[in-house]
């Protein structure tokens, strides 16, 4: 069959005749008797113990181990085997092992009840829900650490934490948030929504998808393990040779990033391949929902940029364990090497954290403006353009480092060129608002706020890209504020918009809009009150990651800290809303609470196990909100008479 917009003639399948695949039909069994989170934890502990023992056995004679009393090799092997045990325990390795003897993968029957959320599951909707909890846990931990940072900065000279503890907190906060942010939309919403939006019953590689989630959780535990190991002193950028000098907490950082990197690559790989191959008949590239475009651009960055991080982390681990000298200048390595590798990944990563936000906003805005998305093609081109350009700008992080100083004008140019496709995003957003009929539901408020915040973040980015101005603002609170405006003000606001918008679809329960509005306004106001003063603090000369600062900056810092605490409270409000609306007093969501034309709203709620009764056929462009009598986006086929015969009885 060629992919055509024609609905295939319905033929009733004699389902009793098995097309002879090697598949084994498994009957459902209780979730708690097979592999799940519990077995994963047990296997991870056993793996850790084994790896740690092995590491000690191998390396206890190393000079550095004897003299320092700390054994990075044992810690690295312990964590490595711990992750391995975790994957074994959760069941991620069952299929790869079965393949060795030629068995083909067959999905298990879906598990009923809560236990499915604690298992290695092939249902992309379950993975999406798992990711929601996973990223919220990450966010919560990182947020706690942020509160600790602001507590320390309340006073320039009196210290709540010891300086090493403070650096540990800063580093852990940065790393956790960066890891979380790469997956915060791709994970929960990307996995949940992409097949629904492109009209597919499944992901291309559901096991890789499940792997990406469970390795993400493993990454959380690995990076968390830095705290009991004594933390790491390098911040999230992990600059060598400080990295090489640091204690065993650094191993958690390097391994954690490598592990999360595996997850990022797996998630991006699966989503990209799914969008390329599983679009429903009739869904041409120009009919693809814009969120899927953003996922595709993000997935390209995830798959191609992350291997560089993994390689960099591998080299760092080798430096710390078998004592190679990749990053040690005195032994023929180079401290510049890590900076180059890290930022070659790091800058595309910035857009990994921006593009999904744009996708969400563009997906939501037409619904609440009751207008088509303005300049759809420009929006898609903008995202692809940003993704492409992001590979050519990494040295703007290194303007003052002395690396290739004569290349600075070039990188200044490429960096500023990124403003052009980013400008497309604003054109599309503002064009969509033009003469709209805006409905101020909570998701729409978050979308409008994104444009407000991201504008500040984007414009300050131009200041940072200018070499002369960069002399003052590099490495200070200005740049800190800049990337919080883009990541938190952009991505996190978009994530909130997405959650308020799609949780009714995912859970069948409405978020309380009254608390939601309170949450939005407190978050928006205190976010700006927290981070806007940091621009001034930065211009006034406060470097990042310091526990002491000039006395005259105390007022601004205190203002920022108190706003940060209130911002934290606003997140508590969000958690309260989540608990209240989802568990304590759930309100059943209507089938299509926002009157969206999106394909994901056309199927039943809760979404049936395979999303669509029939594979839908896409009939027209998306977002035809303003045209009376426009044809429906998709033909779901469930009105055809064949449906009853197909689903009614197996035995026809």
């Amino acid at each position: 069959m060629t992919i055509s917009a024609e609905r295939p003639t319905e033929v009733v399948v004699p389902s009793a005749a098995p097309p002879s695949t090697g598949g084994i039909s498994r009957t459902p069994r209780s979730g708690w008797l097979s592999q799940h989170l519990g077995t994963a934890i047990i296997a991870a502990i056993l793996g850790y113990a084994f790896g740690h023992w092995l590491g000690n056995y191998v390396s206890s004679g190393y000079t550095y181990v004897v003299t320092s009393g700390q054994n990075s090799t044992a810690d690295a092997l312990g964590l490595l085997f711990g992750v391995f045990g975790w994957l074994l325990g959760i069941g991620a390795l069952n299929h790869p092992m079965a393949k060795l003897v030629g068995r083909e993968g067959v999905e298990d029957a879906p598990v009923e009840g809560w236990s499915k959320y604690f298992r290695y599951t092939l249902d992309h909707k379950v993975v999406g829900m798992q990711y929601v909890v996973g990223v919220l846990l990450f966010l919560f931990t990182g947020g706690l650490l942020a509160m600790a940072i602001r507590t320390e900065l309340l006073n320039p000279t009196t210290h709540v934490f010891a300086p090493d503890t403070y650096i540990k907190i800063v580093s852990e906060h940065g790393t956790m948030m960066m890891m979380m942010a790469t997956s915060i939309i791709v994970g929960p919403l990307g996995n949940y929504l992409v097949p629904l939006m492109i009209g597919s019953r499944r992901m291309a590689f559901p096991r890789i998808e499940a792997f990406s989630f469970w390795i993400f959780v493993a990454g959380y535990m690995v990076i968390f393990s830095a705290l009991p190991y004594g933390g790491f002193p390098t911040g999230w950028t992990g600059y060598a040779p400080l990295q090489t000098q640091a204690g065993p907490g650094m191993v958690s950082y390097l391994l954690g990033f490598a592990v999360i990197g595996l997850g990022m690559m797996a998630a991006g790989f699966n989503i990209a391949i799914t969008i390329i191959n599983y679009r429903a008949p009739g869904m041409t590239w120009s009919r693809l929902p814009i969120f899927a475009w953003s996922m595709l651009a993000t997935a390209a960055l995830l798959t191609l940029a992350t291997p560089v991080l993994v390689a960099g982390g591998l080299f760092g681990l080798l430096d710390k364990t078998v004592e190679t000298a990749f990053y040690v200048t005195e032994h023929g390595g180079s401290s510049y090497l890590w900076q180059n590798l890290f930022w070659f990944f790091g800058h595309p990563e910035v857009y990994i954290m921006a593009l999904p936000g744009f996708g969400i906003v563009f997906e939501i805005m037409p619904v609440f403006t009751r207008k088509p998305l303005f300049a759809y093609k420009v929006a898609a081109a903008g995202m692809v353009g940003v993704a492409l350009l992001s590979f050519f700008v990494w040295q703007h992080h290194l303007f003052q480092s002395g690396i290739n100083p004569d290349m600075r004008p070039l990188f200044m140019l490429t960096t500023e060129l990124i403003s052009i496709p980013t400008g497309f995003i604003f054109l599309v957003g503002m064009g969509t608002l033009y003469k709209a009929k805006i409905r101020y539901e909570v998701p729409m408020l978050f979308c409008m706020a994104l444009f407000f915040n991201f504008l500040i973040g984007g414009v300050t980015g131009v200041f940072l890209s200018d070499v002369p101005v960069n002399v003052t603002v590099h490495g200070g609170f200005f740049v800190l504020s800049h990337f919080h405006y883009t990541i938190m003000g952009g991505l996190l606001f978009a994530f909130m918009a997405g959650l308020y918008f799609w949780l009714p679809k995912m859970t069948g329960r409405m978020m309380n809009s009254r608390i939601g509005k309170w949450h939005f306004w407190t978050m928006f106001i205190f976010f700006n009150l927290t981070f806007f003063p940091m621009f001034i603090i930065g211009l006034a000369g406060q470097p990042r990651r310091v526990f002491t600062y000039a006395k005259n900056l105390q007022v601004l810092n205190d203002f920022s800290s108190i706003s940060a605490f209130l911002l934290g409270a606003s997140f508590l409000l969000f958690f309260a809303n989540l608990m209240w609306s989802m568990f304590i007093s759930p309100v059943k969501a209507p089938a299509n609470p926002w009157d969206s034309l999106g394909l994901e709203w056309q199927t039943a709620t809760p979404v049936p196990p395979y999303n669509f009764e029939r594979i839908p056929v896409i009939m027209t462009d998306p977002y035809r909100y303003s045209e009376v009598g426009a044809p429906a986006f998709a033909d779901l086929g469930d009105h055809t008479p064949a449906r009853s015969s197909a689903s009614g009885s197996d035995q026809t």
Partner: protein
Amino acid sequence: MSPQNSKSEVGHLRRIAVVWVVVSVVADLLFWFLVGPHVPPGRMTETAINNQRTFNILFVIALPVLIGVWVYLGYAATVWSAKRDGAPESVGGEAARTNQKAQVWWMSVTSVIVILLAVYGFYAVVVEHGSGGGEGPNPVWSPEGAIQAETAALGGGSSWTPGHVLVVQVIGQQWKFTYRYPGFGGFESDQLILPNHTTIAFNVTSLDVIHSFWAYQLSVKADANPQVNNVAYTETKQLGSFVVRCSELCGLWHGSMFNDGRIVSQSDFTNWATSTQTANAANTAHLPPFAWTYVPDANGASGGFYPDGTFTPYSPSEIYGAKSPAS
């Protein structure tokens, strides 16, 4: 589109444009004259003055952009909102999938602004000799006389006289900057004193991890990397004191890695330097000869990360912290 519609379209845009122009002009003027002269990093050196001007120019361009989007958003939010009560309309608004003219305009304007900014930035970097940023070991844009001064400094026995470029070496180490003055016998001090009206060539290097030498009011910032000589230039313009901070996370006492420096008159500077040279002479004799970079012993005191004897150190420059005789 009916003529009525197109008229109202013009009406919307005209209202937005008027508000935008008025607010932008007022805000730009207020900024340029009231705030601009006080924008960090101040006016203590040539690079500070230049970078302040660049910042202000960028800000004057950025303000209308910010205001434009905000005015538009505010207008849209108030004028184009749907009625709150009543049944939600399933369709509404106007068919506005795309607008060729708007797209072309938008792209042209952003492209022109961006390319102009890049050209201006390029010009500023070249004309201002790197604008106070680290230019690596072989600066391509250096002020007059700097290369000669640095060559002379390396040869040893050079002495600084007013009116010439002063070479100062900044040595980052965990967790303090120290400064060497090759023009005065290569003495080392933990104080940074500079003469006024003088071009300074900072040669920044590190003895261990990466630091970043940030003389805030001087508008100088250059990373200190082990075995790299990172050069940054500025010209002092005013007397006064300034703050030096480390702006690259370098470990435990990164937050404490700061000191005050001073710009003094040329004669005061000469007095200070010569007297310190005399006072430190005994210690200077034990320092390695002046060099652009130094090879730190990667291992530290008696037993380090790498086992001894596993590599052959070859030093084209000077070693700080020799292993022998004590160990």
